[in-house]
């Protein structure tokens, strides 16, 4: 009896291990498939439609039906909007991370934290809708402009990356050993001096990861950006002029581009570019974390 039971337990153990390992392998298979399919479909523009990668990356004329596939306006749009978001949302997010890790009394932290979680949960389309109906008219009024454009997209993205940057910087700061805080205080540093000269440098690699993941969130953001950018497929001349980004242009054009056409291939190429940027950021994170150890 006991022997049979032990055998069954042993067999269950082996089956369980097999199932668990297979589930884990699905992650590997999934990312390989995604990379593979996008590589094949994203390079069709070059090998099947004979558009040169140079013309795609640096060309400024975009006309899907007219065979013009210069994606530079969208690349610039994505980079400027993301850059703006990081310049505003990055420091602000780290500052609030410092607030939660060093300053906030417990009741305040308990009251504020759920707010940050709700901010994560608000769908990007809702951020876009608030941006379109609240922020764009405000910008139009203040700057006497149309309102939609890279400034509006940058502001919306700044807010959207905040929760990511806040919670990751807080985590990075919290693991800094207390001895550093005590040592700094014993040397007569004020609280701000301790934060800015001891804690931030000590947590620098973790803070870098927080910023990089903020970049990843911003560059891939689609609908919040699409609703407030104005969607003009031209090189943006200012932060207030209507513009477009890689993500928003894909959404704008995908429904019109026939299957198998160069137009659709060009949109896949833009998706491939986004994927490669995302993978590049992952490698950067690995490098930032390796420096720590």
């Amino acid at each position, binding site marked *: 009896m006991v022997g049979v039971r032990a055998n069954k337990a042993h067999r*269950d153990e082996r089956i369980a*291990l097999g199932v*668990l*390992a297979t*589930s*884990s392998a*699905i*992650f*590997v298979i999934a990312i*390989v498939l*995604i990379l593979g*399919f*996008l590589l094949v*479909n994203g390079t069709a523009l070059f090998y099947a439609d004979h558009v040169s990668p140079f013309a795609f990356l640096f060309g400024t004329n975009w006309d899907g039906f007219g065979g013009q596939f210069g994606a530079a306006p969208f690349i610039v749009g994505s980079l400027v909007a993301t850059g703006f978001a990081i310049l505003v949302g990055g420091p602000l997010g780290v*500052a*609030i991370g*410092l*607030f939660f*890790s*060093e300053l*906030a*009394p417990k009741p305040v932290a308990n009251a*504020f934290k759920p*707010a*940050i*979680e*709700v901010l994560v*949960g*608000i*769908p*990007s*389309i*809702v951020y876009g*809708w608030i941006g*379109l109906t609240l922020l764009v008219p405000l910008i139009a009024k203040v700057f006497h402009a149309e309102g939609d454009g890279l400034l509006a997209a940058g502001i919306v993205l700044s*807010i959207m990356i*905040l929760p990511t940057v806040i919670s990751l910087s807080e985590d990075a700061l919290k693991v800094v050993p*207390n001895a550093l*805080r005590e040592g700094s*205080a014993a040397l*007569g*540093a*004020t*609280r*701000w001096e*301790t*934060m800015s000269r001891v804690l931030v440098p000590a947590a620098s690699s973790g803070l870098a990861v927080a910023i990089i*993941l903020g970049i*990843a969130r911003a560059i*891939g953001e*689609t*609908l919040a950006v699409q609703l407030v950018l104005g969607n003009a497929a031209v090189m943006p001349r200012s932060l207030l002029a209507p513009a477009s980004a890689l993500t928003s242009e*894909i959404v704008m054009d*995908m429904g019109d581009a026939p299957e198998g056409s160069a137009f659709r291939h060009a949109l896949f190429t833009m*998706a491939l570019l*986004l*994927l490669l940027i995302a*993978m590049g*950021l*992952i490698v950067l994170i690995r490098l930032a974390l390796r420096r720590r150890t």
Partner: protein
Amino acid sequence: MASVVMARPAPGALSSDRARSRRIVDRIATIALWSAATTVVALLLLFIAYLFVQGYSSISWHFLTGYPKSAEAGGGVGPQIFNSFYILILTLIFTLPIAVSAGVFLQEYAGPGRFRDLVQFSAESLATVPSIVMGLFGLIVFVQLFHWHFTALGGALTLTLLNLPAMMRVTQESLAGVPSTYREASMGLGATKWQTVLRAILPSAIGPLTTGVVLVSGRIFGETAALIFTAGSSVSYGASAYDFNPFHTAETLAVHLYSTQREALVPDATQIANGSALVLLVMVLVFNVVARVVGRQLTVRLTGKAS
């Protein structure tokens, strides 16, 4: 950590002018950090208030359950709300077994090594794939390759890929919170590893696990970019617009908010968008509250802790 006492510089240790200016800088920085945090919370409250003010007049029983109209005013979003939940449930059916198993494997079984690093790296990479890119992958595979056209199933499978890493992370974190004495006690009583996982570790991690799962569900509910070109931006008009066929097109509420902006011919597109935005926000709030309450309840019931 905030409890560490930060000594002020001793008076007379420095020239008093310098000490004073350092104190002022410290004071300014403290005020700045407090204002930054308060501003963000105030911003959230502003968003909530704004969406309620704009949207509440659109909300009615008819709006929440009625069918959308194609050209005249007064359409509802019933099928879209149904589709949002339907795709969420389909996604959870695929995501949970895979992600929880992988989380258990990485946290409890796999020792440090190549395979574990590979899975971890794949999960991190998967987590940074932008949702529009995942949407195009879904389009390539489910729409173009399998010829399914736009389907609830294709949308759900795309969302599964998008949310596997977050679910796995949630599982890993919940398991990491279980004290190692539980494992030792169970194994010491002669249980196998699998018996330990199934009867000791998972039940005691069920609270935080549920909280995490519900929070991720909230994000699945509001996802848009990955669904537009996989599940489609129109509702199915079969026998009923409340359609359980996973091979029919299924526009969700979030996608509806997008498509009313993009292409709607109805004169009340703005009101419909305002109402949809409010429903989405309320759902986010509900998911957050449910996550907390259910997580706590389950922890109490299954572990007897923190009653």
